[in-house]
């Protein structure tokens, strides 16, 4: 397949130049020219007002698999020390949504100790089946072992869809699993759907630093695999006592070995859990200096919130990375998000724009942050926030 410009139709209007996310279109002699940077995304094709951009040649459709043999929606139920992580419920939530259109079983996959407890939790929130590989050693994440177990289970039971959370664990072992299975994997999705006609999984994710959204499919390979951003989808709610099927595979039967040895573990001193916080007060470039984060911390403390930041503040070394909200930091969805001196670069918005209630304080009335704010305060943070702190202290 190739994308070409029909030079006779092209008017040199440059719309495609601006549209192309890869910067692959140049104007030469007043006509558009597509260079080697083209990734065949076809975004320009529909945007051209005179239909001068054409797709030449069909894509090869080769599938050696009998796709109909692959059934079921699987999600990896991540645990911490034998207790299910909240991301497992998020994956169950989105899986149940997919099952409504796809009409296939929703199955958890659990590696760790206390498999029965985990399975019951998942049944109680709507799962039909849970595949359990139980062993205390599995409470610890070990890349090679997790890849081996997931690969072998997929080969044995042939699921249609496999999901994991885009945590550091999911982002580490699922790509290697997908490569071993020679199938596709879409990273960091923020939503999933089933195409009602083709029944294919539509994987939706932000790309280009959150500037664009992409819909991705995996047509000819199975399973269709994706990692889902934590906090991007709703958790499945308890639905009362329900029964389900536990399918056990004996850990020793996999003969799984890990090439990398774990020598020791060091817990990090209580870092903030931004994703669990109900209130977040964030500071950005407008603070001008790291010591001004004291004001943000004070405000956060007074209203029982956690401290977040923009990428600019982290890059400037004013606050450590775990506080960063945005495309390359944490995605958060608190009840209240207060952005102080944050202009609202798209990459920041990508991480917080779904918060329930957003307050922005910025002296630039044109700052993009105001577009997502429920309440926008056009003012100087160094004047407004100390006064607000006074009021909160003296109430």
């Amino acid at each position, binding site marked *: 397949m190739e994308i070409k410009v029909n030079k006779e139709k092209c008017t040199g209007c440059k719309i495609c130049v*601006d*549209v*192309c996310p890869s*910067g692959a279109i140049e104007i030469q002699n007043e006509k558009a020219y597509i*260079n*080697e940077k*083209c990734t*065949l*995304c*076809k*975004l320009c094709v529909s945007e051209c007002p005179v239909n001068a951009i054409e797709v030449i040649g069909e*894509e090869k459709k080769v599938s050696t698999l009998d796709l109909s043999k692959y059934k079921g929606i699987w999600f990896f139920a991540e645990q911490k020390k034998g207790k299910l992580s909240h991301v497992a419920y998020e994956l169950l939530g989105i899986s149940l949504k997919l099952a409504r259109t796809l009409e296939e079983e929703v199955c958890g996959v659990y590696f760790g100790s206390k498999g029965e407890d985990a399975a019951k939790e998942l049944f109680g929130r709507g799962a039909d089946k849970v595949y359990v590989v139980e062993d205390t050693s599995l409470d610890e*994440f070990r*890349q090679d072992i997790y*890849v081996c177990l997931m690969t072998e289970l997929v080969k044995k039971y042939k699921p249609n869809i496999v999901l994991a959370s885009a945590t*550091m664990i999911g982002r580490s072992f699922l790509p*290697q699993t*997908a490569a*071993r299975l020679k*199938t*596709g*994997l879409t990273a*960091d999705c923020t939503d999933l759907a089933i195409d009602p006609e083709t029944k294919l999984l539509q994987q939706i994710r*932000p*790309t*280009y*630093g959150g500037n664009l*959204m992409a819909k*991705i499919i*995996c047509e000819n*390979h199975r399973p269709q695999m994706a990692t889902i951003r934590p906090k991007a989808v709703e958790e499945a709610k308890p639905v009362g006592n329900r029964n389900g099927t536990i399918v056990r595979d004996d850990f020793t039967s996999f003969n799984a070995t890990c*090439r*990398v*040895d*774990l020598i*020791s573990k*060091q*817990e990090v001193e209580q*870092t903030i859990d931004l994703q669990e916080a109900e209130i977040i007060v964030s500071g950005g470039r407008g603070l001008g200096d790291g010591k001004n984060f004291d004001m943000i911390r004070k405000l956060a403390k007074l209203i029982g919130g956690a401290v977040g930041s923009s*990428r600019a503040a982290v890059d400037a070394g004013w606050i450590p*990375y775990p506080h960063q909200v945005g495309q390359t930091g944490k995605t958060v969805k608190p009840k*209240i998000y207060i952005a102080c001196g944050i202009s609202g670069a798209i*990459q920041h918005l990508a991480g917080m*724009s779904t918060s329930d*209630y*957003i307050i922005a*304080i910025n002296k630039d009335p044109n700052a993009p942050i*105001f*577009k*997502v*704010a429920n309440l926008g*305060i*056009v*003012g100087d943070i160094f*004047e*407004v926030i100390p*006064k607000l702190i006074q*009021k*909160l202290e003296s*109430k």
Partner: protein
Amino acid sequence: MKYIVCIKQVPDTMDVKVDPETKRIVREGVPSIMNPYDYYAVEEALRLKERFGGTTIAISMGPPQAEAVLRESISLGIDEAYLLSDRAFAGSDTLATSYTLSQAIKKIGDFSIILCGREAMDGSTGQVGPELAEHLEIPVITYVSKIINVAENQMECVRLLEDHYETLKSPLPVLITVIKEINEPRLPSLKGMLKAKKAQIPTWTKQDIGGNDAQFGQDGSPTKVVEIWRPEIKKEGKIVTGEPDELAEILFQELKKLGVA
């Protein structure tokens, strides 16, 4: 010891401006840069060479223009660089990209440590590293924050995993993806810049690296982008201006209403 760094040229997405009228992304004049996370991988390769001896090599897959980031890596101190460029690589997803890189790395051969940034700034998938390790059939350690030691046949390092760090020992060869914490990248030296200017950077095509035709480019990519759009960001909020006192009062009342003040 041979250390191979995989780097990517990306559009400087953080500088993207959206035309307020047309809502289109303004692409003109947006420069291409080395993926910011890759500087840490390049730096760590240079430090490995300084600490334990060996050769540093950078590779990149991309259009001919991507040679610029390889040249930049040489200015920082990398010994050799290879560009993987062929129209047959267009439309590669992470599986095809990692396959292409693996074929080039096999051609270079005899490697000890492969280094990648944690993810690229444009796609932000973080998948190429672990997938590349699988094609090479070597272990992978993601999110590495420190390399403690490299000996004849093994490496000891520290990696971040959500809320804790792990000290791990791996046999060589191994692939690591590194996080910012691992080092502070250096700036190019004058000598390096001169060397970069003169350096020969061979371009390898599909034919040069060999492999299975069906695993390159779009044919070798199980995933396909079927639609791209700009996210709609809108919220019916109110914007207020005024004296700092009034504004603080409005905020205070709002926080009261929300039940937190």
